């Protein structure tokens, strides 16, 4: 017995020695010089954008508002699909609900901008019971089941007499603001919402929950075997995405002023989100932002091409999923080891090959 214990002791000593040796040879870091610079630059850019209404033209401010909303949509769809492994073609449900609840809350007599913020909270609350059913579905069943949810919610919203069916209604109370300041407020609200949601997701992905999320992204089976609870994490992502997309819908309504259920509950919104995330890079924090910017440029230049523009979007989405499934950012990250907004870790192994750094 004594011998056995001693051997055990030796073994564990040996192990811990080796672990120490290993620990000395490996350096785990999050921030690199490049990523520090990138975050500071991003912060400066956002501060600069906040002052844009002082000198930029009305049309430019309006377009930038649209860009911020696209970034929110792409980031939220990416959070769901890229990290949670939940591909949905029904996120227009929350986009439409965000707009609908804004109309409803403003109708109670509240300030329209307060209604925008409250509406997103209501959408998140509504998404929770939906998640209880939907998260039990897998893969394609979840994807198209969400589309059924969107279709059902669209029909139910049409039942509300206030909306007047497909004719729709305008957010009339916006008229209490003069048009110039209205535009500026919506712009700043969109900028603030986008920044807030990006920071929120960034912090979430870097937290303990975030490690769980990224573990699930890489392999759900392996993650559950380590004690990660995929259900809990997926529910969190589902509600967060509903909140963000609801907010985007509310902001879109504030900027477009009129609400026609058909446009807001259109499956086209899902097509846009899928395009942005696939092109930018699914499961990459920076990828969704890049994808939204590219989509914004493509829309600005080609949306006059009408139907061919949509054909092009679909074809590009197919091409990316077949030939470049990690998207443009995934490719850049692989080639140049870029990681500007670090949500993972850098693992450097000193002994074996000091030049080689392993990027997680």
């Amino acid at each position, binding site marked *: 017995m004594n011998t056995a214990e001693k051997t055990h002791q030796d073994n564990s000593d040996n192990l811990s020695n080796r672990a120490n040796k290993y620990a000395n040879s490996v350096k785990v870091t999050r921030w690199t010089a490049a990523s520090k610079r990138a975050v500071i630059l991003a912060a400066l850019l956002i501060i600069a954008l906040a002052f844009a209404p002082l000198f930029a033209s009305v049309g430019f401010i309006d377009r930038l508002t649209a860009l911020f909303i696209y970034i929110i949509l792409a980031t939220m769809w990416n959070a769901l699909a890229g990290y949670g492994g939940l591909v949905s073609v029904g996120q227009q449900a929350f986009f439409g609900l965000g707009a609908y609840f804004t109309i409803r809350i403003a109708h109670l007599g509240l300030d329209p901008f307060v209604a925008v913020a409250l509406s997103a909270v209501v959408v998140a609350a509504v998404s929770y019971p939906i998640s209880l*059913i939907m998260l039990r579905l897998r893969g394609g069943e979840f994807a*198209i089941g969400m589309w*059924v949810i969107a279709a*059902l919610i669209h*029909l139910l919203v049409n039942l509300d007499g206030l909306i007047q069916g497909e004719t729709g209604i305008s957010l009339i109370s916006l008229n209490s603001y003069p048009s110039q300041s209205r535009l500026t407020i919506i712009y700043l609200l969109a900028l603030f919402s986008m920044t807030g949601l990006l920071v929120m997701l960034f912090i979430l992905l870097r937290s303990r929950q975030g490690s769980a999320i990224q573990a699930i992204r890489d392999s759900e089976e392996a993650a559950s075997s380590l004690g990660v609870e995929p259900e809990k994490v997926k529910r969190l992502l589902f509600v967060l995405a509903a909140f963000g997309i609801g907010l985007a819908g509310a902001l879109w309504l504030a900027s477009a002023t009129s609400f026609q259920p058909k446009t807001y509950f259109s499956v086209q919104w899902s097509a846009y989100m899928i395009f942005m995330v696939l092109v930018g890079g699914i499961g990459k924090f920076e990828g969704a932002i890049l994808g939204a910017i590219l989509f914004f440029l493509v829309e600005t230049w080609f949306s006059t091409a009408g139907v*061919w523009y949509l*054909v092009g979007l*679909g074809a590009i989405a*197919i091409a990316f*999923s077949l030939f470049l499934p990690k998207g443009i950012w995934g490719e850049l990250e692989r080639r140049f080891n870029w990681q500007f907004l670090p949500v993972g870790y850098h693992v450097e192994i000193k002994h074996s090959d000091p030049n080689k750094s392993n990027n997680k």
Partner: protein
Amino acid sequence: MTNQIIQAILLGGYYALIACGLSFMFSIMKIINLAHGSLLVLSSYLFWWLADSYAISPFYSLSIVIPIMMMIGWALQEFLLQKSARGGELLPILTTFGLAIVLENLLFEYFGADTRSLAPYIGDLSWESWQILTDIYVGKTSVYILLSAISLLASLQLFMQKTAMGRQIRATAHDPDTAGLIGINARKASAIAAAIALGTIAISGLAMSIRGVFDAYSGGPQLLFAFEVTIIGGMGSLWGVLLGGIVLAMAQTIGASIHPQGFLIGGHVIFFVILLARLYMANSVIAIRIKKVFGGLR
């Protein structure tokens, strides 16, 4: 009341027919084809184009459209699904969704915004009906659609169970690698399965364009109906598809009688009710008791 039930069963036959291809592809290839609805509309346009430009009766053009759709199915498997299925279960959702967007917008570009129907090309059949009770009439086309759904489901079932090819497809569906080990060409089996699925889509495209109107963007709602039928009927069961179609049509009929806009809502609601029931019943005491009772009977 009796009339409503009979009409709902006939409508259910139509839903079963359009769900056939989706359910078959899902049970064999484990892929939910989001381009299902758009492919259905594509085949409807093919029938319409042959009838409109060449005055070919839609029933004769079945012999042209079915092979065309089967070839499209083979190409779809060979060039799109084969590659995307290897990238995990999420990728086929994205590629077939992209395909749906491309297809429906191309159809819109080519055929324009007008709604089309094949009813003018089938003569009197489109409005003829049989009187089955003193005050109950059933449309001939609806009856033919129900009968074709039943015979299509029966022949698929027979093909899968009785023929060598059917067994090979089932083996591939079960485990492609092992099927390969025992000499089955898994790639060929999948391509044939995809071709069959698209062949059934051609038949349902004819049904859709005869019983109503369609346009380039009609695919979305049809996809949702087909999907709901597949889930209600229970996946992997071809006869479940028929049952699912009838349940969906019944729920829509009940919905419509409650509220003028309740037709579609009724369908979506029954879908979620059955989904919920299935999810929560799976391990409940009642389900186990039911299983015991039915197990005892067998």
